[in-house]
C-alpha cells in the first residue's frame, strides 16, 4: 500500500465534503479496494469510510412498498434482514463470497465497482431498482455502463438502493471455480407488468437484460419457455474458466433454473 489519509465521517454531507479532495476515494467494506491498494494498483490521497454513516446502513420497507437498503449495508445484513421482505435478494446476498466478505462488503461498494461477475448488479437490474445517490436517483437501466463503469460521477455516493418487490424472483448463480464470483448468474423477477431477466458474469459488456427471455417468460413463466431460446456467444467473456460458447449456454441453463426456483 501507498500511504493515504483516512476519514470516517458520520453524515452523508461530511462524506461528500471529504470526497471533494483531489484523489479522495470512498471506502465501503474494502473487499475490492483494499486488495487493490495492497497490490499497489491504486494510490488514493485519502480514503473516506462510509461505514459509520448511520443513515446509510440497514434494510427497511419504504412507504412506496419497495425495499430500501442503505448503501453501506453489508451483504450479511441484507442476507438476514431482507429475508422476509425480498427473499430472492437476501438469498443472493447470502451467496456472495465467504462470511468475512459478507460481513464487510457493502451493496454500495459492489454496485459502484460494477465488476462484470458481481451478483448484486443482476438483482438491481432485474428488479428495476433505483440507485439513490447523495445528489440524484438513477434508474437501474441507466446505471450500469459496461465492465467496471457506472453512471456515478466522481465523488458521488450511493446512499441507498430501492428495490420494487416482484411477485416471484430467484437468482441462479454458477460460480467460477476459483473466485466463486458468478461465471454466469441470472436474476429473474416476475412483476405484474412483466418479467425482467438480468445476466451477470457472462458478457464483456457487464450485466445485461436478456430481452428475448423476458418476452417468452412474460407470456409463459416456466423453465420450458426458455428451453428453445439461445444466446449468441458473440460478446461473451472467454477466459480460462469458460469459452464464450459455454457462457452463452449457461445463460440459458441458469435462466431456466432461476425460473424453476422462483416458480
Amino acid at each position, binding site marked *: 500500500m501507498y500511504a493515504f489519509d483516512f476519514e470516517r465521517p458520520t453524515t452523508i454531507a461530511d462524506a461528500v465534503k471529504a470526497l471533494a479532495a483531489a484523489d479522495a476515494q470512498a471506502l465501503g467494506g474494502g473487499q475490492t479496494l483494499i486488495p487493490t491498494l495492497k*497490490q*499497489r494498483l491504486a494510490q488514493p490521497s485519502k480514503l473516506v469510510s462510509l461505514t459509520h454513516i448511520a443513515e446509510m446502513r440497514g434494510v427497511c420497507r419504504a412507504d412506496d412498498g419497495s425495499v430500501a437498503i442503505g448503501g453501506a449495508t453489508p451483504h450479511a445484513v441484507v442476507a438476514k434482514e431482507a429475508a422476509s421482505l425480498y427473499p430472492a435478494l437476501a438469498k443472493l446476498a447470502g451467496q456472495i463470497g465467504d462470511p468475512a466478505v459478507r460481513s464487510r462488503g457493502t451493496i454500495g461498494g459492489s454496485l459502484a465497482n460494477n465488476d462484470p461477475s458481481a451478483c448484486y448488479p443482476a438483482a438491481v437490474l432485474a428488479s428495476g431498482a433505483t440507485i439513490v445517490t447523495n445528489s440524484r436517483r438513477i434508474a437501474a437501466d441507466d446505471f450500469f455502463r459496461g465492465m467496471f463503469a457506472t453512471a456515478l460521477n466522481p465523488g458521488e455516493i450511493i446512499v441507498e438502493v430501492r428495490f420494487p418487490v416482484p411477485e416471484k424472483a430467484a437468482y441462479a448463480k*454458477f460460480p467460477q*471455480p*476459483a*473466485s466463486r464470483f458468478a461465471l454466469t448468474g441470472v436474476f429473474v423477477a416476475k412483476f405484474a407488468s412483466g418479467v425482467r431477466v438480468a445476466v451477470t458474469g457472462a458478457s464483456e459488456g457487464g450485466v445485461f437484460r436478456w430481452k428475448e427471455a423476458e418476452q417468452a417468460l412474460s407470456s409463459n413463466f416456466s423453465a420450458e419457455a426458455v428451453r428453445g431460446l439461445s444466446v449468441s456467444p458473440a460478446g461473451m467473456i472467454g477466459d*480460462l*474458466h469458460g*469459452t464464450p460458447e*459455454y457462457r452463452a449456454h449457461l445463460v440459458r441453463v441458469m435462466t431456466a433454473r432461476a425460473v424453476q426456483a422462483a416458480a
Partner: protein
Amino acid sequence: MPKDHGIGASSKRREDVRFLTGRGRYTDDINLTGQAYAAFVRSQVAHGRLRGVDTSAAAAMPGVLHVFTGKDFESVGGLPCGWQVTDRHGKPMLEPRHPVLAHGKVRHVGDPIALVVAETAEQARDAAEAVVAEIEELPAVIDMKAAVRGGPLVHDELGSNLCYDWGFVEENREAVDQAIRNAHHVTTLELVNQRLVPNAMEPRVAVGDYNPATDETTLYTTSQNPHVIRLLMGAFVLGIPEHKLRVVAPDVGGGFGSKIFHYAEEAAVTFAARALKRPVKWTASRSESFVTDAQGRDHVTKIELALDKDGHFLAIRTETYANMGAYLSTFAPSVPTWLHGTLMAGNYKTPLIYVNVKAVFTNTVPVDAYRGAGRPEATFQLERVIDKAAREMGIDPVEIRRRNFIDSFPYQTPVAVQYDTGNYHATMDKLLEIADVAGFEKRLQESKARGMLRGLGINCYIEACGIAPSNLVGQLGARAGLYESATVRVNATGGIVVMTGSHSHGQGHETSFAQVISEMIGVPESQVEIIHGDTANTPMGMGTYGSRSIAVGGSAMVRAANKIIAKAKKIAAHLLEASDADIELKDGKFTVAGTDKSVDWGSVCLAAYVPHNYPLADLEPGLEETAFYDPSNFTFPAGAYACEVEVDPETGKVTVDRFAAADDFGNIINPMIVDGQVHGGLAQGIGQALLETTAYDENGQLLTGSYMDYAMPRADDLPFYRVDHSCKTPCTHNPLGVKGCGEAGAIGSPPAVVNAVIDALHRGGMTHVTHIDMPLSPSRVWAAMQR
C-alpha cells in the same frame, strides 16, 4: 481396545496446541534487533536481455540502506542443482548457471533483478519501484514442443532448450517396440499432467543475520531441510563454512515439496546481512509465491499399453515432455526420471517397459518436486491408460487390474526397483468393501432420477517412499546422500529429547516420533520431546520429503534408541549385579530375567549422570547416542482408490460424491495422523483433478497468479472420505516395518476422479469421450460432452 499411547495409538497431535492457539513460531514471527527489510525487483517480462539496472534513484530514497544487483553476486556461486541426469546417449544433462540475481538475461516473470534493503518493509517496496531495469524484451518460449523445435533459447550458452533426452530402460527399447508392434491390442493415450502451484499456507520467508564479532552467519528460513540448505548455500553459493553457518527452519506452515529447494532469496538476504552487518528479512507476498515458488508436475505424455487377447499387459512405452521452467531447481532433473520412470510398472506384471523423457527449458517458473513428485505423473498415465484399455477390450476395470497384479514378493520390476512386500488383491478387496461398490447401481439409479450422470472410477497406485539408498541414488546422479540421523539424549531425571534430522512442517513428527520412543522404552509420551529444524542442535540430516520421515528418520531414531537401551541395560546390570545379557526392559523397568529384581528407568538415567555407583572403567557416563540410517531399499506403499462422481449434464459440473482409499502403509504409528495425511493428499489430488491449473499466456505472463483464477480445493468441493489402512504388509527392511503415507492421497486420487468422470459420461451415452485433460472444470467437461 485401541491403544492409548505408543505405537498404534491415535495420540492427539501435541504441536496443534501451539498451532491452533496462535502460538506457533514461524519464520515471519522472528524479528531481530536492528532488522532491515528486503524487497526484490522482479522481471515483469518472461524473457529479455538485461541491459542495465539503474539503482541511483532507489538508493537515494528514504530509509534505503543498499540496493544489490546481479553484479554484486558475480563473485559468488550460482544456485546449485542437486541431481545430474545422464541422457540416453550417456551424456550429462545440460546444466545452466542459475545466478542469485539475474545477470545478462531475465528468463521468467518473477526472476529477481535487484534487492533493495531498507529500514522498513514499505520503504523497501517504495524504493524497489524506483529501480529502473533496462530490459530488451525477447520472444518467450512457453510451449515445450516449440521449445525443442528451435524456439528461442532460454540459455543461449547451452545451444538447446532440451535439458536431457532420457531413456529407461534404454536396453529394453527395441524389445518394447517389437512387443507393441506384435501385440493383440494396443491402447494409446495422450494426456497432460498440468502444472500446479504448491500454495503452502505459509509463504516463504527468510531472515539473514550476521555477527561480525564471531563471524557467525544465521539464516532463518521456511525450509523442509535446513541442513541441506546450509550445505548448498554455504558450500556452493556464498562460501561460508558449515561451522560458521547456522540454518534454522522453525515452525513451517506446509511445504508440499516447494520448501525443499534452495532459493535465490535465501542466499540474497544472507549475502545482504553479511554485507550490511544487519539482520535482513524478506517475507514473500502471495503474489510473489505464485511466481517464485518452484511449481509442480507439467508433463505432456503419450503412453501406449500393449495387451494380449485376455487383457494381460505385455509392454508399456511412454514419451513425456517434462517442463523444467527457466532454471534447474534443486532436485528438478530427478523428478521426471528416477522418481517417475521407476514407478511405471505400477502394481502390475508388465514384462517390458520403456520410458522416454525429454526435459525442456521454457520461460516459466522452475518446476520441481511437488507432493508425490514424479509418482503421481506415473500413476496417472498408467491408471488412465489401463482404464481406457479395459473399456476398449470390454473387460471390467477391476478385473483387468486383478489379472495383472503382482502377487509374489519380493518382485523385481523391469524398471530397476524391487518391491519388498505388498498385497494388491487385499487392498482391492478392502476398497470394494469400504467404497460399497455393490451399492453403486442403486446410487446410479437415484442420480438418474434427479437427471444427473453418475460414474465410478477405480484405480491402484504404488509409490516409492523412504528415499533413499545413498549408494543407489549416487549411481543415478544424486549429488547428495539420502540417509537420516537422530540423536537421543536422555536427561539425568529420565526425560528424553530426540534431535532428528527430519523436519516437520505439518506432519506431526513431534507426536508420532515420541510415540515410538515411548513404545520402545516404556515411558509416557509426555516424557519425550522431539527437536527438529535447527542445524545448531540437530545432527546432519536430509530433511523431510518423499514420505521419508518415519521410514528413514524414524529408523535412525530407533537405531539411536537401541544404542541407548543397550547402554542402559549395562548400567542396570551393574546396579542389579547381574549380567547385561539377562536384563529385560519392559514398561520403563529393567528386570533380571526370571527374577523379581528390578530397577526403574529413572534410576538408571540418574546413575548415568551421577555415576557414584557405576562401572566407570568399562562404560562412559551419560546417556546420549547418535545414529545415522541409510535405507537399503525404497519402501513401496500401495493401495486402491475409488471415486464416485455426479456430473451435471447441463453444465458439466463434476461433484465428487464419494471417495474411498484403501492403503497399505505397512505398520502404522498413529492412525489418526495417517488418516489426516491421506485426507490432505486426497484434497490435493482431487484439487488437481477438478480445479487447479497454472496457465501462462504466449508471452509467459502467468494468467493464474492469484486465487481469483487459481482454483484451490475448498472443504465443500470434497466429500467425507472413507479411508482404511488395515491391509498391512510391513516393510521388510526397516526396523519399524513402516512405508510412509504423506503423498499417497495425492498420487492415487487424480486418476480415480478422471476415471469416474469418463465412466459417468459413458453411462450417459457419451461414448466418444475417452479422455479429458485435468482440471475437469465444468467448461472442459461440457465442451467434451458436445459433438
